[in-house]
């Protein structure tokens, strides 16, 4: 008679699909969980990473020890970690500002390149002799502005399209990365190519004045200071100003922001400008602090790693400072493996991926719990 058709889909709202496992939101994650779970996640990631390393025929403990000393073991190694941390910090902050407003700017890589391109243009062709003669303290502010302007203008494209026309910023900002990278390729192979570069793709070296001052004999440069200042300023702006409040509200709900009369389109553009400017500043610092010329492959993907940095730092400027340092350590330590143990440098990104995976998974568990029941626990009106 009644052929027992599966009618679950029809007879109830989508959210009730009979019994099964489901995630249930925890309203107030405990403080203990918020501290213990990330640590446990990292340990779990290291265990899994260790198994993979073991499978590759190495002793995981040796590998981890080598990585730790490679990243933090000596003053030199620590300084190299800080050098790597600098672009991650600045781009991570830039990404985080946009993410706080639920603007998915994943174009930090391109904005980083544009900052570097603008700085190169100014440093090679745009500095009057008098300014050069006045020394670094006159030149650096000009280059800072140039770098921020380059990144900001690049981010303004997806920003304006999103703010005023509703075009999805994720796609536009991502695609502009490729445009930016190819633009820099064209410049270093073409019009800006170093005439005495022995065929290597790159521009001429900058005149000495635009070099960022470094700390002692290390390669740690003024860019770190830019990043720390930017983090502090952002923290204050986001937490303590009207504009930061508007960003937070708009991030929570664009409709509510419009209801309150906030200029959402304008705020979207401004946030993208700030986000891009920080990535551009990262490009500026990298090129004036380390490379001193625009080279092919300037960034090993800082703008993408920035997304991980921002996310793991929970979009909090201080969290981002800590995460940028640790991730930089992972990268530097990974390179060390290649030198000391002759291992593939792919181990570092593998560990980075494993750690991210476990941290995000652990994060899910602090905010949700897995339950098994017949239907959703939410009452409906």
């Amino acid at each position: 008679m009644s052929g027992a058709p599966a009618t679950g889909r029809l007879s109830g709202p989508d959210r009730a699909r009979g019994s099964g496992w489901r995630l249930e939101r925890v309203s107030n994650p405990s403080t203990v969980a918020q501290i213990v779970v990330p640590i446990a996640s990292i340990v779990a990631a290291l265990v899994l990473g260790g198994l993979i390393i073991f499978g590759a025929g190495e002793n995981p403990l040796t590998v981890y020890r080598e990585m730790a000393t490679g990243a933090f073991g000596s003053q030199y190694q620590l300084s190299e970690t800080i050098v790597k941390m600098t672009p991650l910090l600045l781009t991570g902050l830039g990404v985080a500002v946009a993410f706080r407003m639920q603007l998915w700017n994943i174009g930090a890589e391109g904005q980083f390149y544009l900052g570097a391109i603008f700085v190169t243009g100014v440093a090679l062709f745009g500095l009057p002799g008098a300014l050069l003669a006045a020394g670094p303290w006159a030149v650096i502010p000009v280059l800072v502005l140039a770098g921020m302007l380059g990144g900001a203008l690049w981010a303004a494209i997806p920003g304006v399209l999103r703010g005023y026309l509703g075009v999805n910023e994720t796609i536009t900002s991502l695609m502009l990365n490729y445009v930016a990278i190819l633009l820099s390729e064209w410049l270093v192979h073409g019009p800006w190519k170093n005439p005495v570069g022995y065929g290597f793709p790159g521009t001429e070296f900058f005149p000495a004045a635009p070099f960022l001052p470094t700390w002692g004999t290390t390669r740690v440069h003024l860019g770190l200071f830019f990043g720390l200042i930017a983090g502090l300023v952002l923290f204050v702006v986001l937490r303590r100003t009207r504009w930061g409040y508007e960003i937070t509200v708009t991030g929570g709900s664009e409709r509510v922001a419009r209801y309150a009369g906030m200029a959402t389109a304008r705020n979207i553009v401004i946030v993208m400008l700030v986000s891009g400017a920080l990535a551009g500043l990262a490009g500026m610092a990298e090129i004036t602090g380390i490379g001193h010329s625009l080279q092919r492959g300037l960034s090993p993907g800082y703008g993408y790693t920035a997304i991980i940095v921002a996310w793991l730092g929970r979009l909090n400027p201080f969290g981002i400072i800590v995460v940028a340092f640790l991730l930089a350590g992972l990268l530097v330590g990974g390179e060390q493996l290649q030198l000391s143990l002759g291992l593939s440098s792919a181990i570092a990104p593998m560990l980075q991926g494993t750690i991210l995976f476990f941290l995000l998974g652990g994060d899910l568990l602090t905010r949700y719990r897995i339950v098994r029941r017949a239907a959703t626990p939410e009452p409906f009106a």
Partner: protein
Amino acid sequence: MSEARAPSPGGNEPARSSDPMPAPAEAVALVDISKRFGSVVANDRVTFVAYSGEVHALIGENGAGKSTLMSILAGMYRPDSGVLRIGGKVADLRSPADAIERGVGMVYQHFMLIESFTVTENVMLGLAGEGFRLDTAHVEAELRRLSDAYGLGIDPGAYIWQLSVGEQQRVEIMRLLYRGARILVLDEPTAVLTPQEADSLIATLRQMASEGFCVIFISHKLDEVLAVADRITVLRHGAVIDTVDAASASRQELARMMVGRDLASALLDEDELTSHRTGDVVLAINALTAANDKRLPALQGVSLEVRAGETLGIAGVAGNGQRELAEVITGLRPARSGSVMLDWRDITSEHPRAIARAGVAHIPEDRIGTGLVGSLDLSSNAVLRAYRQRPISKGPFLSSRAIARFTDSLIGSYDVKTSGRSARLRDLSGGNQQKLLIARELAGEPKVIVAVHPTRGVDVGASEAIHDVLRAQRLRGAATLLISEDLGELLALCDRIAVLYEGRVMGIVAARDADAETLGLMMAGTSAGHIAAVRGAA
């Protein structure tokens, strides 16, 4: 799927009610059912029995636990404790599929239909067919038969998007009949209908009961319950108050059971009306037109005036321009033509913040999503209007001390129940969210209040408190535009009631003289002038 699955409506058989009354057969029994959601007890040891051949109404205020109880019967939720019997047999329902297999089907307030499919295709969705072949013709013939037998008037070949809300509801009923449901649960089925459509639904349900179906009808409208039901069960605060025969029940008695006190106090009393004088016109709307989100005309020349100390209600079936009217007044939607005047100053299509600052408060239709941000804390939500003003704002900076003080004062004076100002808004109950929103909107003693469904989805206690607040605002001298689908609420709070139909004002009546029939006719599109003319001629 065999033909036998569809019930025989028994067109040739005499109606069962003409038989000598047999002992009623128990269709469903929910015994000692309890269900809690977190700390909220939705059902507290509820026992409810319905028989074949009866229309059994389940009434109670919003949040009384009606929907939860029926969702348990329909297999959506499992009870924490208690026993469920269907057709005399204990049933452990694990899903809505289990329920329909045992003959229980539920029509929800929100229909589960796919707009771009035909009626037949919607009915066939999810049915276990034989292989890949769809026997559309057979199903269609069966549906046509059902439609004729119950006077549903549905063409099985029609697309859902072509059908009115009332017709879509009948499709839902038809689908359950096709699947062999003998126990039909309808969750506030008339909420979306005009009074005339509701009457025809009631006729259908009566017919089904006479043929042996068990019809359970959830409602909070007393008049329609008395018209449709054989027996009535009243729920309050998750518990059964009583089950009574409709024939011997009175409106007053039911109201008292539902609310827990006399309903008369809800109406604006004579004193309140006479001793209170309304003032000058504060809000004047002249020949306003505006488009909806699909750029179709939503308001087509609306003119209204609201005086200081007056509450003007806007009645109407959802989607007749109410939302757009509120949005145009508050600056969230541009007017195409016409004007909105505040104290004789033109504020048409001004910036929302400028309008708010000029003294227009807005209690929007969707609390979370328009008026409040669920993911932020109470403080952030509390200062949404005041964050640019001293003392909360000092230049570009915000004073956290002033924010805390302001938030605490709103929480205190409107009795918002919360663990504190840093609690996340979403963790508050609907009623407390709404109280915070209203507290914020009324903090500046606005001249005009635009309130849209201010008590929708709010528990009884909060709903009472909100009504008290709106009454106090009226006495203070605020001009209030109250948009609501709940006629009871409009009658309880308003001086005058205007009815909006397809973006036009059908008529305005004094709440004291308003009767349900006139309002119903206007809600269905008859103008007040026409009604008067017809009555004059009669």
